[in-house]
């Protein structure tokens, strides 16, 4: 009775919030949880194959999308919080939406979960599998410090008490260390191709100390930020042997990245991830690791990953008549660096590009914007000929413009237009016919921009249809 009431109330909230144009992400779940606090536990138990939870700072949504493609192709019915609403109410909303579509319980719940609520989500869902992508600084104003974030995830993993599998990014020492002494099936994935790395750490560094003794870790290669092949000089800790690895990585495509997968089965397989950049190689690996652990044949998982559509706002293309928008969500320095180097492309490619960079400081973006000073905009300024102009926008547009000035970009190429719709008009007007506008918004700026774009009749809003 109570379940029904909760579902009914949630449904009503879902309809209402859609009508109001909010995309219905977490409000319905909030309402339903008020009435039935055990909603997630109850539905979790009805799943035939259980839940898979993805957590970590970056790559949750893309990894979930890629994995969803593989699970769906394997004939499994999914419930998936694909809009990226990853706090407890967001998870409950995903269950509600699924229930509204089809009341029969689905096979698998695929949930991306915010690090801070990860222990709570594990307690409620009792997942059969967990993927931890990486730990970077992200919204520290909300969580305090990076160590706190890591300890949340540790508590969640310990609460699994050896049940289910855990896929860990071995190249991130903070993630790999979580596998120490962990009971259950643990698989480590990582990149094994020094050609795509560097000897020196060039970008923001998160954590370079050995987690056992505190000494600075030695790196043979850095892939990006603090991800790489590392070992403690005292021999206390090193990158775990890779169960699943990417070799022969090719990053030159603007539409995707390729690599050879080793360790997934008796044969090596060539994998294409439909989103560009080295960070998406990791997302592809993470999704494949989980698919393999769930018993999906690796060849099939590889072809499903190649056919997956990019996730909402994570590097998506939107056609605007005779121009095109390439939008990539940014939320922390490491992600931003990866996006910038992918958007700017090869050093030989000096076509001047127009950028719309939007910085909001609402709760979901992180209210502290000091992280923009850790983004390597200097690398962008060094490729000045490839930058036709940048319009800074959003609630903190002035600070972003200032950041670009101090990065060394000429003042003539920087404009500050706080209103997102005005900024969009202005930049689109500057892009020549047939050209691309590169848009890098923070989370709430992305939602706002998508609203502006869809009000003009382009790009579907995200709850419409499955991609």
């Amino acid at each position, binding site marked *: 009775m109570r379940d029904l009431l909760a579902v009914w109330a949630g449904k009503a909230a879902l309809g209402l919030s859609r009508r109001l144009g909010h995309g219905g992400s977490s409000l319905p779940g909030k309402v339903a949880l008020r009435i039935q606090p055990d909603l997630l536990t109850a539905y979790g138990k009805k799943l035939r194959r259980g839940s898979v939870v993805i957590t970590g700072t970056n790559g949750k949504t893309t990894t979930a999308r890629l994995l969803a493609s593989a699970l769906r192709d394997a004939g499994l019915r999914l419930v998936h919080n694909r809009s990226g609403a990853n706090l407890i109410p967001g998870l409950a909303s995903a269950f509600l939406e699924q229930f509204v579509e089809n009341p029969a319980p689905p096979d698998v719940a695929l949930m991306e979960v915010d690090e801070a609520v990860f222990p709570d989500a594990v307690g409620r869902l009792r997942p059969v599998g967990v993927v931890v992508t990486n730990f970077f600084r992200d919204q520290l104003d909300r969580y305090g410090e990076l160590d706190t974030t890591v300890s949340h995830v540790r508590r969640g993993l310990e609460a699994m008490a050896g049940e289910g599998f855990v896929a860990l990014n071995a190249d991130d020492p903070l993630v790999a260390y979580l596998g120490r002494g962990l009971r259950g099936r643990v698989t480590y994935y990582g990149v094994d191709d020094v050609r795509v790395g560097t000897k020196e750490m060039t970008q923001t560094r998160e954590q370079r100390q050995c987690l056992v003794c505190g000494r600075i870790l030695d790196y043979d290669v850095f892939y990006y930020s603090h991800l790489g092949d590392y070992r403690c000089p005292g021999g206390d800790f090193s990158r775990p042997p890779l169960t699943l690895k990417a070799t022969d990585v090719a990053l030159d495509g603007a539409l995707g990245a390729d690599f050879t997968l080793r360790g997934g089965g008796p044969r090596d397989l060539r994998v294409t991830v439909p989103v560009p950049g080295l960070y998406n190689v990791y997302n592809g690996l993470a999704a494949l690791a989980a698919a393999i652990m769930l018993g999906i044949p690796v060849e099939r998982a590889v072809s499903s990953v190649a056919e997956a559509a990019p996730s909402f706002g994570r590097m998506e293309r939107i056609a605007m008549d005779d121009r095109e928008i390439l939008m990539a969500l940014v939320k922390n320095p490491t992600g931003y660096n990866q996006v910038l180097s992918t958007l700017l492309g090869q050093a030989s490619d000096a076509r001047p590009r127009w950028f719309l960079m939007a910085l909001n400081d609402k709760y979901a973006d992180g*209210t*502290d*914007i000091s992280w923009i000073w850790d983004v390597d905009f200097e690398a962008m300024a060094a490729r000045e000929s490839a930058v036709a102009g940048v319009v800074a926008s959003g609630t903190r547009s002035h600070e972003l413009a200032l950041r670009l000035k*101090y990065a060394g970009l000429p003042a003539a190429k920087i404009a500050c237009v706080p209103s997102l719709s005005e900024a969009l008009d202005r930049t689109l007007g500057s892009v020549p016919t047939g050209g691309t506008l590169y848009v890098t918004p923070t989370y709430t700026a992305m939602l706002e921009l998508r609203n502006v774009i869809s009000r003009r009749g382009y790009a579907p809003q995200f709850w419409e249809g499955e991609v």
Partner: protein
Amino acid sequence: MRLAICHLYPDLMNLYGDRGNVITLTRRSEWRGIRADVSAVGLGEDVDFTAYDILFMGGGQDKEQKLICEDFQGLKGRALTQAVEDGIAFLAICGAYQLLGRYYETGCGERLPGIGLLDVETRAGKKRMIGNVVIASELGGGRPRTLVGFENHSGRTYLGARVRPLGRVCLGYGNNGEDGFEGAVYRNVVGTYLHGSVLPKNPWLADWLIARALERRYGPTSLAPLDDGLERAAHDAAIIHAGRLARLYRTPVRSRDIAGTGRRRQPVRATAGDDPEHKANAAVAVVWRATVAGQTMGKEDGK
């Protein structure tokens, strides 16, 4: 002319984009034709502090602060004290600010010794003080000028007799959320909780540090003015924005004695009762009138 900038422990103490401060010191020197060389000093490395003009250390996590504190016991610590007494310019943010103090008292009452350069002490607090901050500072002499930034700390810092505050809190928590002070100044050392990064949108503070460093090395000098249009816009926008956000995040607002007149201002009465937004806006307006609107913050630069 040349300035040598020493970035202390950039790999351990760089939690909140604080390296923007080093970028700002460098750029603002270079734009004036002053060469700026930045060197990084890490754990266990010897430093000849006499070779430097400006020191900078950012915020870090607790366990990193402990490592650094140990690093400063002994010779390195004494050399640093000597350099400070000699007038070296030093900007320390958040964790670094706490570290320069006499001690940090943990929740269990254990006292972890600091470097002891600043006569301040910090006690662990339960509540994390997070949000935008606006302070009015008399550091540059003359009328108080505003500084705006973002704070994120649970330690509560109290000032001793041998330091003066960097400023008075107009909006936010400041040192401890109680006494209305923010930061500490001793000789040419500035400790503050302001992230942001603080220097880019408060360029007068960057120029104050550069001017102190030049004075010490080359005698009295005047800084050439720069085009600070973008800096001023970011500074002003951040203050207005902080006022708006104060309502959402229930940030404490102080509106007393901001203009430094010595007279305590009457608390602002809102018509709609105790509406925090109104109070925040009123506080910002007071700061605005006292410092920004009347005489733009850049005006005193270069004198």
